[in-house]
């Protein structure tokens, strides 16, 4: 039964969350949810990171949870987007608190949720321990700047305020100037405007290895959100030795691949397709929906086809497909409607990111958003825009004023430390977390309500005499989502729907296959089947797949 979306309005309570929780607090809460709701919720630690932290996943649902269509919700996609962790775990908390509500009960009887509070716990913990800087890399020691030494040039807190901002060095050879729009912000001097630089700007720290670069190789690491296989950048910045090299990414991918019942992912991180939905390209790739990806390596092992050299064909899909574009737009509209968010965050392209992987390589409906952003007018400097936003919204102490310091690398030059505080451009004030969690909880449950759902309709039995029966029936998808994303139809890691006809003893199937594949069904569309059967009895018919559910019916032929 498709749930009415209005029904949620009265049910949602505003979450009470008003602080950012560290790893221990998140873990404790995660484990306590499983204890508090043992029938609905179980927790598993998938792997320990190099920094000794767990990647947790909560399974929330009823009955045979892993056999029901499911949505995965993930936080901690990048270590400096802390709000995502609260949104993910907060979703789980709200869902369980609300589980007595008849609409949620109904939802949980059809849909399972897998919640990963944080897939980058090594990096996100930096905010809570000692020196605060925006860290995106895990605890695997790597040679980030390829100088054949690892972790030799970290940040240093030169002005003793416990956070890392910037330093600016007065120097006639410098390439930066103060912005005309806000003198606190440093921008590159624009020669075309006749500007001459008078500062060098670096992140706060010293050049430990005297290579001219500052703080380019600190403790850690690989950024898990650069380590997924889609558009993975070989030798990229913090991308790892190879795609899926990290325990975090491998554990998450293994879990997702093993759970064929998952049909959609919702991630909280820098990539966004909810504020601003994605656009399909004009040219659509040609492939038939469910014949692709079948029967490769067929038994024989004589797979290597040799022949005349042929023109290489590039089969890679690089833009959202048309049918999925429609769903993305629908969901984005719903997101704006429920959360009240205006506009969209600035697009953040990054090689090897999770959102793209979940769509192009995992073949599911993939949604992602930071969950919170501030408005930036087109063409304007985002830091300047942030400071004016911070002032309007009374975010205190957003900027550390430029103050002179002594810097060992610039003994004869005036050096000042200052800049926008870390984390606050990507993360909302803690006292708004409760509200955001509630809104995103509403959104995800509304998204879940759009799930595909099969039903048999127009079932007809015709008795042709002489013990001969014709049966026709239709399989109808009465949900909004298709039975699989269009990108999933060519993906080896999604299942194809099947219809199975089981005649009773004494009945024979005269025409039509016992097992037949059902092609992908858009929301609202139908596939028709007919069979010819001889003999009286009960014919058992089932249709579906693990990611959409299986429906059954019995036809009495008498």
């Amino acid at each position, binding site marked *: 039964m498709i749930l009415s979306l209005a029904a949620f309005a009265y049910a949602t309570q505003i979450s009470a969350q008003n602080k950012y929780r560290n790893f221990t607090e998140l873990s404790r809460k995660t484990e306590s949810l499983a204890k508090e709701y043992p029938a609905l919720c179980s927790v598993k630690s998938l792997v320990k990171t190099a920094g000794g932290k767990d990647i947790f996943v909560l399974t929330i649902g009823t009955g045979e949870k892993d056999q029901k269509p499911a949505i995965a919700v993930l936080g901690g996609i990048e270590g400096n987007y802390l709000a995502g962790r609260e949104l993910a775990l907060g979703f789980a908390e709200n869902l369980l608190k609300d589980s007595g509500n008849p609409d949620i009960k109904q939802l949980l009887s059809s849909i399972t949720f897998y919640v990963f509070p944080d897939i980058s716990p090594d990096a996100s913990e930096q905010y809570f321990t000692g020196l605060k800087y925006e860290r995106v890399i895990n605890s695997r020691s790597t040679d980030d700047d*390829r*100088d*054949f030494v690892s972790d030799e040039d970290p940040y240093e807190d030169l002005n003793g305020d416990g956070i890392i901002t910037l330093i600016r060095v007065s120097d006639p050879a410098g390439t930066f100037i103060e912005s005309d729009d806000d003198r606190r912000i440093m921008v590159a001097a624009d020669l075309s405007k006749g500007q001459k630089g008078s500062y060098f700007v670096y992140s706060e720290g010293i050049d430990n290895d*005297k290579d001219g670069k500052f703080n380019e190789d600190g403790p850690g690491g690989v950024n898990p959100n650069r380590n997924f*296989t889609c558009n*993975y*950048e*070989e*030798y990229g910045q913090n991308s790892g*030795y*190879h*795609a*899926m*090299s990290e325990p975090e990414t*491998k554990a998450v*991918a*293994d879990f997702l*691949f093993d759970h*064929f019942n998952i049909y959609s992912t919702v991630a909280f991180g820098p990539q966004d397709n909810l504020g601003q939905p994605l656009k399909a390209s004009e040219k659509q790739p040609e*492939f038939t929906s469910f014949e*692709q*990806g*079948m*029967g*490769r*390596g*067929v*038994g*024989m*092992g*004589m*797979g*290597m*086809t*040799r022949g005349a*050299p*042929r023109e*290489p*064909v590039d*089969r*890679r*899909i690089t833009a959202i497909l048309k049918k999925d574009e429609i769903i993305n737009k629908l969901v984005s509209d719903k997101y704006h409607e429920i959360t009240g968010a205006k506009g969209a965050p600035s697009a953040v392209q990054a090689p090897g990111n999770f959102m793209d992987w979940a769509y*192009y*390589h995992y073949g599911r409906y993939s949604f992602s958003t930071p969950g919170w952003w501030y408005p930036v007018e087109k063409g304007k400097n985002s830091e300047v825009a942030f400071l004016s936003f911070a002032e309007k919204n009374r975010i205190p102490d957003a900027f550390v004023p430029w103050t002179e310091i002594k810097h060992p690398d610039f003994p004869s030059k005036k050096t000042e430390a200052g800049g926008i505080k870390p984390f606050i451009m990507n993360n909302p004030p803690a006292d708004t977390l409760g509200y955001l969690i509630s809104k995103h909880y509403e959104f995800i449950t509304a998204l879940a309500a759009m799930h595909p759902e099969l039903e048999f309709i127009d079932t007809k039995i015709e008795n042709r005499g002489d013990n001969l029966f014709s049966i026709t029936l239709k399989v109808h998808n009465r949900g909004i989502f298709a039975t699989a994303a269009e990108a999933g139809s*060519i*993906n*080896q*890691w*999604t*299942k*194809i729907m*099947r219809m199975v006809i089981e005649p009773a003893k004494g009945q024979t199937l005269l025409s039509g*296959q*016992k*097992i*037949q*594949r059902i092609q992908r069904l858009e929301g609202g569309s139908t596939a028709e089947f007919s069979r010819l059967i001889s003999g009286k009895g009960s014919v058992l018919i089932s249709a579906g*797949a*693990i990611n959409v559910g299986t429906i059954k019916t019995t036809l009495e032929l008498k």
Partner: protein
Amino acid sequence: MMKKYKFSSAALLLLLFLPAISWSQSYQMFYKAAGSPANPGVQASWNKYYTNQGVADLCSKLAKTYPDLVTMETIGKSFQGRDIYLLTITDKKTGIHSQKPGFWIDGNIHSIELQGTEMTLYTAWYLCEMFDENDFIRKLLAEKTFYIAPTINPDGREYFTSSTVPPRSGLAPRDNDRDGLVDEDGTDDLNGDKEISLMRIKSQRGNMKIDPSDPRKMIRVAPDEKGDYELLGYEGFDNDGDGLINEDGPGGYDGNRDWGFNWEPNYVQNGADKYPFSFPENQAVRDFVKNHPNIAASQSFHNSGGMILRGPSIRGGGSEAYSRQDDDVIERIGLTGEKIIPGYKLLTIWKDLYTVWGGELDWMHGNGCFVYSNELWTSYLMFYDSTNTDQYEFDRLLLFDDAFIPWQKAIHPQYGEIEIGGFKKTLGRLHPGFLIETDAHRNAAFCIYNAYEMPLLEVKDITVKNLDGGLKEVSAAIENKRMLPTHSASNLKYRIDPPDYVFLDGGTVLSGMIVDDVLQNRTTEQKKNPGRLEVNNIPGNSQVYVRWIVKGGSKFNVKVESVKGGRASGQSK
């Protein structure tokens, strides 16, 4: 008294020489042919395929018999828990294996491509057996290290040698037809002969008939002729009742689409699995190669087609860089390979074969190596004649019908009475017994040549010049006497390995510099840490020049350490 003593001493002498006489009589059973060991320490014959047990046995024997050359280890386990063996072969007395340029060889990544294992085993055996007898091999093992992994898919190999025809991949179960069942419909050995042969059925609708000149052959009938047979494909039936036959057998991925370089998922690259290094066998190779950055060049054996394959594997090469100089070296070595292995052609994968995403060759290249992959066996080898590739004639004249399974009746669960027959799995892509050793020697020779051309560094022309103020200027040349540079273009572009380090010992170093132009005497000073000069690359068959300003000392030692180029040192006079 004297007489008696004399007689006994003569008898004593006879007794002493008797064993020698009988020993030399047995020694004379064999006379050494050119280029082969006459009395190998490890007996091995090369007209058969080795099972996994045979591989382990031969490797152990080599390690036991030649402890000063060979170390045997397990680098990991396969999906089904079998050992993946690796032999490290070098002259241990002249240096540590990891400090010499390393040559990697592996075979049998694809289950039915068995003979790669025989090629690698022969190479290992030959190097060991010829070390004492042959100057070239002796010098080679003093300068270089071989890392030889006879099979990196022992599960597939086991299936081939003990069961029927394996999938191309290893044996991790996969739902190839995406129906929710795993490995439910593979081939079926209907007549229990451990082969998967062709099926034919007598049929009024058939378009095939038995060749009147050779009952083994099936030929298509003319359009106006009526055939009496239909070919039904490979042995099997529809195990899961879904209307398809043999669509989901054991395994079903491709181990050579699993490597972490230019990797793409299955819909782009057939055979790819979840992500790169999804499989333990390849993970084992990855970890070993990563921990042995001295590996500078490699060979991975496949079948078939008679090819010496080089990269790039995708158009444009993706992230790889091939410089003009690298290309010249690759072409030169590859074309020499065509001479060494007649019938084999040097081909570029994406251009002359097909695009491969996530292949082992590209990954090795991405680690800074020079890589080839040979596709073993070509029908040219049957009659050394590219115009005669008639397998039936070859089987009759040279194998005496040994490779053909005569058509025989069998019962098929769906079709009823059918006939099964065809060539055995050991002919078509695999060398017949009598041709294994020849091709093994030729492919080993290609590996040896390839390994020989890995860098060989020499420190020479150390000169000491007196300067004012009691300082000295010490200059030296570092020569690379072989074709391969110490750093490939990829290696330089992506800073995969450190530069070659050149150290000076014997005085206090005040300044160090690279001599960019010897004739013009142009130098670039290295400001940081001049006692350890950083040379980006020493190209093939060329020299680089270094210089220091030193205080004190009289005798100086110059030492070069290159990750992929090995080490060398020299002393001033």
